[in-house]
């Protein structure tokens, strides 16, 4: 299991773990396929998040906030969406058709225009500096909501590149709330039980491991052994559900709808993970830092993004999951109005957009706006702290009453000088 994480890095209440497993076991005993059963019986109470991270900075002009016929508007046309009066860029025709499910925030104004600082700053909610490292939103949700009895990791990340355990996301919460990353949408290596080991032998091995854990627990601080066990049990549950990763078993029409490309495959896998009950699924797309050739770049990038994003929102709606799954799609900032000599747009945190759907969110509207040229927010501007309040509220977590406990130090879960955006909340 070392490829996932170091056992001593993990802590989890065995009681919570056993509670979770018993719920999962009850579902299994019902004779229904696990995914379907979760979907039918438990999903209504579930709180889940799909977090679509567009790394590098999607241009708001070429997506959610077109400014046609203006100095910085760029070459693309706006198109009408399914909601009268709301237009998006022509590069996202599929998303335009599902605007009745979406809430677009066009009034984002954040503080950091660099990737290296901006990415973690945004994903940690940019709280006041108290000398501690705050958790990413996914880790916060993993801590505050947990795995909801699935036995699966609460926070997973589907991304291009390498697999592993991204403990850094968890900040002061501790590594157990980090992300289990499925690089290139593949399960961790050596996850399958070797054919040479029978199921019975595997059970024997596990019972021996449990006994060893028990002895280990007696000689360690409280929590260490539970964390150790959590790793093994999450891994075992993943072993049981390896079919999740096998997209060849998915309806070919779904594969076509999501797109035969990296992002499409990853979003389809994300849907299956949400169906399996995982609390927080993050999907990352790289390659959006279009300082050069921004327009041809977005002409290539956006249709693939649009295809997969619209497909998963449609599917969540069709499956009745959109009332449970909070969907967020965003970057670390937008892109500059001015068009540089490399026909690119640079980083622009001053006025940009993100989009949401699903649990707790009003649908079919835009919130906030930019001026005619897109160079500044008009009216109230929203920082990422506002969004963290909004997202927690959408998930039923009261940011006024809920705090993190950092070894006895109470810490707010979102920037205390900011608030939820009421216009967004259902």
């Amino acid at each position, binding site marked *: 299991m070392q490829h996932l994480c170091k056992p001593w890095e993990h802590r989890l209440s065995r009681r919570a773990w056993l509670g979770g497993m018993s719920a999962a076991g009850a579902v299994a005993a019902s004779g229904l396929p696990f995914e379907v059963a979760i979907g039918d019986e438990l999903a209504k109470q579930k709180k889940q998040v799909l977090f679509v991270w567009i790394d590098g900075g999607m241009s708001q002009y070429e997506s959610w906030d077109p400014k046609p016929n203006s100095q910085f508007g760029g070459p693309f046309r706006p198109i009408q969406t399914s909601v009268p009066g709301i237009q998006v860029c022509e590069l996202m025709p599929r998303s335009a058709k599902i605007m009745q499910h979406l809430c677009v925030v066009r009034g984002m104004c954040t503080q950091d225009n660099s990737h290296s600082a901006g990415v973690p700053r945004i994903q940690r909610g940019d709280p006041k500096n108290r000398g501690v490292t705050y958790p990413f939103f996914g880790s916060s949700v993993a801590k505050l909501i947990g795995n909801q009895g699935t036995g699966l990791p609460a926070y997973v990340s589907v991304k291009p590149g390498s697999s592993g355990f991204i403990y850094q996301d968890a900040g002061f919460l501790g590594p157990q709330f980090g992300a289990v990353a499925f690089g290139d949408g593949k399960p961790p290596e050596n996850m399958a039980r070797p054919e040479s080991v029978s199921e019975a032998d595997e059970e024997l091995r596990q019972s021996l491991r449990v006994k060893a854990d028990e002895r280990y627990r007696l000689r360690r601080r409280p929590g260490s052994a539970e964390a150790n066990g959590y790793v093994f049990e999450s891994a075992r549950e993943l072993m049981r559900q390896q079919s999740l990763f096998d997209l060849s078993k998915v309806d070919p029409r779904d594969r076509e709808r999501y797109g035969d490309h990296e992002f499409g495959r990853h979003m389809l896998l994300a849907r299956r993970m949400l169906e399996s009950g995982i609390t927080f699924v993050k999907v990352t797309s790289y390659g959006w830092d279009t300082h050069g*050739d921004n327009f041809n770049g977005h002409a290539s990038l956006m249709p693939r993004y649009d295809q997969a994003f619209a497909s998963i929102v449609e599917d969540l709606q069709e499956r009745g999951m959109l009332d449970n799954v909070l969907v967020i799609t965003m970057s670390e900032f937008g892109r500059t109005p001015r068009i*540089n000599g490399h026909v690119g747009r640079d980083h622009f945190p001053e006025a940009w957009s993100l989009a949401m759907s699903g649990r707790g969110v009003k649908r079919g509207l835009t919130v906030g706006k930019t001026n005619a040229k897109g160079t500044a927010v008009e009216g109230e501007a929203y920082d990422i702290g506002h969004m963290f309040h909004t997202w927690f509220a959408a998930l039923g977590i009261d940011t006024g009453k809920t705090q993190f406990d950092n070894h006895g130090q109470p810490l707010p879960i979102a920037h205390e000088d900011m608030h939820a955006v009421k216009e967004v909340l259902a």
Partner: protein
Amino acid sequence: MTPELKAKFTPKAAKKPLDLSQQVVSACFSPTGVFLLAGSMEGQVGRWSLVPDKPEPELAEKPPLTGLTAWVSACVCLPDGKLAVAADSFGNLACWSYCDDATEPVWKIENAHDGWIRVVLVSPDGQKIATCGRDGRIVFWSADGKKQSEIKIGGDLSEMRFAPDGKSLFVGSLAGKLSQWELAGATKLRDFDASPLLKPDRLQDVGGIRAMAVSPDGALLLVGGTQPVNGGNVQGKPTVLAFDVATAELKKKTELGAVGDVYVTDFAWHPDGCWLVTTSGNPGQGRFLCWRMEDEQPLSETKLSNCHAVRQHPSGKWFALLTTNANSNGNGKVVDKNGEYRGNSSPLVVMTFPVA
């Protein structure tokens, strides 16, 4: 390459570039050389006339031609010396009488294409206007704006040139597809392998055909672009592929810069026997090259901030280079001394070769 030849093709810049008020994406001279038209990112066709009897080319601004929207991505003057046709990125095509004071178009076709029209050409006999763009179609029009025919090719058609005899044309796409089409039967004559100019990188198809030229004798097809290293902030070496038209064989691949120099953006044939080439890369990186295929090194190289196109004056005595101002990039909100958000501009650099 002799010192004399190098000296002949070492250009000299006029004292001051003409700073066009809007960022420009296309330009053309009138056949008489009296007018310069330039299509902007703000839906205008800027118009200038040459001030007579000046020691260096000097341009006087005239009222811009209106009627298009978004980016005026292509413009061309017809050989009659009176009409010009331009197209925008919203798919509209318009024609003006540019010599008089009128600013409204003589005719306009809305949605001539479904979206971005990237190229407008006039056939060598002056009888046809050809347009192509993101909708994958080549459409032929008469000078009075009547659609004559079309060829459906597919893909995002980024460059196109007529063969000198006007019987066929070459078309290239952002996906790196390159082919020659016979016009009478609308049939494909041959494909060319321009794959070095394309890299599928994650979700992005990077590169493609960005510049095109046919040698005066029709024997060689040159396409320019980059050999992409990555998408996003596109990087790559500016590269020219030279094909034998008759066989589609790649005769030569030439790299004309380093990775940060990125794209070959334009070609023009100088009648004294060399190619004028522009490159544009990372903000501030751009060059104007005088280059012959047979040489390892360009005859001359002039650094210019983001050089997007070269247009030769019909007199053959000078040429204009479309560039972007220096310091055009930067993260965050960049404001001028009045606190206004600052855009960029397109200095038009006028150059001459030494008189023999």
